[in-house]
């Protein structure tokens, strides 16, 4: 808890996150080798991203927003984003471990969390900007979002590349393998839950049988 609060209010850690966005090569390198990143800040950024995403879906201007606001559940979206973040980190870590990547789980999660900053900013600016656009100017709104999201994707790629000390080609291969690993993890989890369910229902039926016969 102490470390959490210390990191959260550490001005240097926050400034460093923004430094990483503007200087990705150096920034991610120092995250790996000089301990300048913070997992806490990274998780906060992921939460912030989820919140901004939900806010955009709920209250972007009517002209560019085609979503039924009643269908948006920001809490569910937060859980989903955090879960996805966790799964991506773990699966990337498990793949890069096998492929001689230098990054630790910590570094991967920091790299992915920090990379979300452009998307967060784009969603905030886009949501505000969308209040003032008409239909024919809507292209600018979509452009803002597209620029933010694509910068985030580029940062993620650079982040994973730098943290593991990979070449670009190897990074792309690991990213593809990461998704394979992601699906395997999800599959195993589902399988596990299904088996647990079966076991529980097995014992329950034994119990019921005993009760009805006694």
């Amino acid at each position, binding site marked *: 808890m102490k470390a959490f609060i210390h990191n959260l209010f550490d001005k240097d850690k926050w400034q460093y996150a923004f430094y990483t966005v503007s200087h990705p090569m150096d920034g991610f390198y120092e995250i790996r080798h000089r301990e300048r990143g913070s997992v806490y800040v990274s998780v906060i950024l992921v939460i912030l991203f989820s919140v901004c995403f939900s806010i955009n879906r709920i209250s972007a201007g*009517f*002209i560019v927003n085609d979503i*039924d606001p009643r269908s948006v559940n920001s809490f569910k979206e937060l859980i989903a984003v955090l879960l996805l973040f966790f799964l991506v980190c773990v699966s990337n870590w498990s793949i890069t471990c096998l492929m001689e990547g230098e990054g630790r789980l910590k570094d991967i999660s920091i790299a992915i969390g920090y990379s979300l900053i452009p998307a967060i900013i784009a969603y905030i600016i886009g949501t505000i900007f969308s209040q*003032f656009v*008409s*239909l*024919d100017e809507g292209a600018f709104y979509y452009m803002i979002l597209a620029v933010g999201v694509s910068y985030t994707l580029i940062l993620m790629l650079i982040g994973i590349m730098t943290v593991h000390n990979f070449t670009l080609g190897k990074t792309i291969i690991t990213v593809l393998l990461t998704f394979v690993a992601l699906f395997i993890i999800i599959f195993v989890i589902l399988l596990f839950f299904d088996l647990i369910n079966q076991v529980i229902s097995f014992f329950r039926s034994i119990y019921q049988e005993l009760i009805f016969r006694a």
Partner: protein
Amino acid sequence: MKKIKFKFKIAAFILVALITGSSAGQMVAKAAEIPYETYNYNYWGDIVITPAAYVPNGSVQASDLGITDFKEPQDFCYSDDGEVYVADTGNNRIVVLNSDMSVVNRVIDTFTNADGAQDTFSAPYGVCVSENNELYVADSNNGRVVVLTPQGEFIKIIENPQSEILDDNFAFVPLKVTVDYADRVYVIAKNAFEGILVFESNGEFTGFFGTIDVKITAWEKFWRRLASKEERSNQQLYIPTEFTGIDVDDGGFIYASNIDSDGIQAVRRLNPQGNDVIQKGENSNVGGDLEFGTYGDYAGASEITDVVYRDKGIYSLLDRKRGRIFTYDKEGNLLYIFGGLGLQEGTFQTPVAIEDIGEEIIVLDAGRDSILRFKETNYGSLINEAVSLRYDGDETDAIAKWHEVLRLDENNELANSGIGKAYLTQGDNELAMKYLKLGKNRKYYSIAFKRYRNDLLASHMNYIMTGIILIILLIVLYKKFNVREKIRQKLQQKESVRREASN
């Protein structure tokens, strides 16, 4: 004591209900009185229950009118003279009823043909009365269209279409027929997948019209490529669907319905060249129900069997799958939905044809062998009138009607966007924005918003410009006098003074 109180409560409740009911002065048909559900789809495609636009108003059996009952009648037609012509297919006759369908004016079952011999119909399937007051009967089993006067005197016969484009063993079995203002005859024939057959007024076949394109998905193409030649010959042919019903509007445009298994487009509005010029509205759908199940008895898209062009661009489609009647305006917006299958009074068994007789919509049911009548309610007539006013360009008069509609159906998106559009033309952008947003009309909202925003900017330009200049000035001054640096210097001075003092 308790009982008395209870009774008093009931009495008070009834009184309140009576007062509110009468003061509203408008009848909204209650759901319990109607044997079907009336609903519509909102912007997001969700079902919204609406007041009934049309309510059952009895039915007509031939036996009540003193003739033998209808036997699987397949089509009927409402003439300009106000007579209803029923093609009584099973009894090989045409029954002519008066406008309120209480009297049989005449029964046409024989006529004297060109040779002077007596002739009869064989399963007359379709019937139509032209603008020039000639009766066209699609005499299906005889393979001809018989043209008579309304009294049943012979005029001519259209048969045996000759053309190179027709298959050699094509058997002409006309099912539905309609005639435009120039006496061109449009015939839907059995197994004529190429489209509607068009005949000139002299009976000469001129060609097909409004062919429905075959849709093959990429997936089907892929499998066909994999299949061998033998397998391919065993597979079913991809042939276009046939038309099911046909009508003509005042401008000579043909409305033709077909069964679309995807539920997207079940009606076409064909211009004289045979091109489809229908407007599909916000949902880009004119295929009946937007939502339907994929398995079970009620599964699948609506099967539209007939179309009727009514007035001012309004047309109605008849669905035989769920017995619904869908009404659209010229822009393809769904106005209201009513009707249902069942055994109750006012529901259908096998609906086959629909007609508009002014204040009523009538539906021919081949299962019940009767004509079902539906009377428009206040709600229905308000929508019809408002849409008609808009069609005529009377947007301002339409506002009043739309407001009335809103009193009956608060969330009616059509009414809201109708009001919004009218305010927009009046120049009241703020109100227009409010109603267009409620009506979920993005396109017009954007126009209203842009005007509102630009007006606001223009009228407050002096403040905005002053503000910007002030901010720039402040920044410049701040930089020039380097306030921050001076403050720091001062602080440092103080610090050094203190240090010296302490030393």
